[in-house]
């Protein structure tokens, strides 16, 4: 079963590599913010999966905080682009 975990983690890390490439390349601000939002979602999934690998119940809380607070930064940057804030 250890091989299964390594394969899943490798696929998720490959997704992170593609998002980071778009973050570096993206021509406009909005492209980079989309890449950051996608990376935030990937990190939520990764932290829950690593909590399962470590077999610790309390580690789920970090991921819960990310799911609740992670979109506020993206929302602020989007409002700044719009001219509102």
């Amino acid at each position, binding site marked *: 079963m*250890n091989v299964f*975990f*390594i394969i899943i*983690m*490798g696929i998720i*890390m490959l997704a*992170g590599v593609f998002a*980071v490439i778009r*973050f*570096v390349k993206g021509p406009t*601000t909005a492209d*980079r*913010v989309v890449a*950051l939002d996608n*990376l*935030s979602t990937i*990190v939520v999934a*990764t*932290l829950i999966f*690593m909590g399962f*690998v*470590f077999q*610790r119940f*309390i*580690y789920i*809380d*970090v991921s819960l*905080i*990310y799911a609740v*607070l*992670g979109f*506020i*930064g993206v929302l*602020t*940057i989007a409002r*700044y682009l719009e001219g509102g*804030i």
Partner: protein
Amino acid sequence: MDTITLLLLFFSLIVMIGAAVYAAIMKDLIFATIGTSLISLALSVIFYLLHAPDVALTEAAIGVALSTIVFIIAIRNTKRYEDEK
């Protein structure tokens, strides 16, 4: 340490150093703010993998939400592009 943990740790370290260099060399301050947010994301994953979930929780709450809002308000009140010298 486990193989999965080592793999993810090296990936997060590379992303964090790359984002720090990116935030330092960018002339557009919005891009630098997004780079700072990415630093905080990768640093939180590193704290989590080193079995310090409380520090990771604090880093997530402050780095993703609060510091981005403060930087955006500061940029809104001054100017967006850094001067060429």
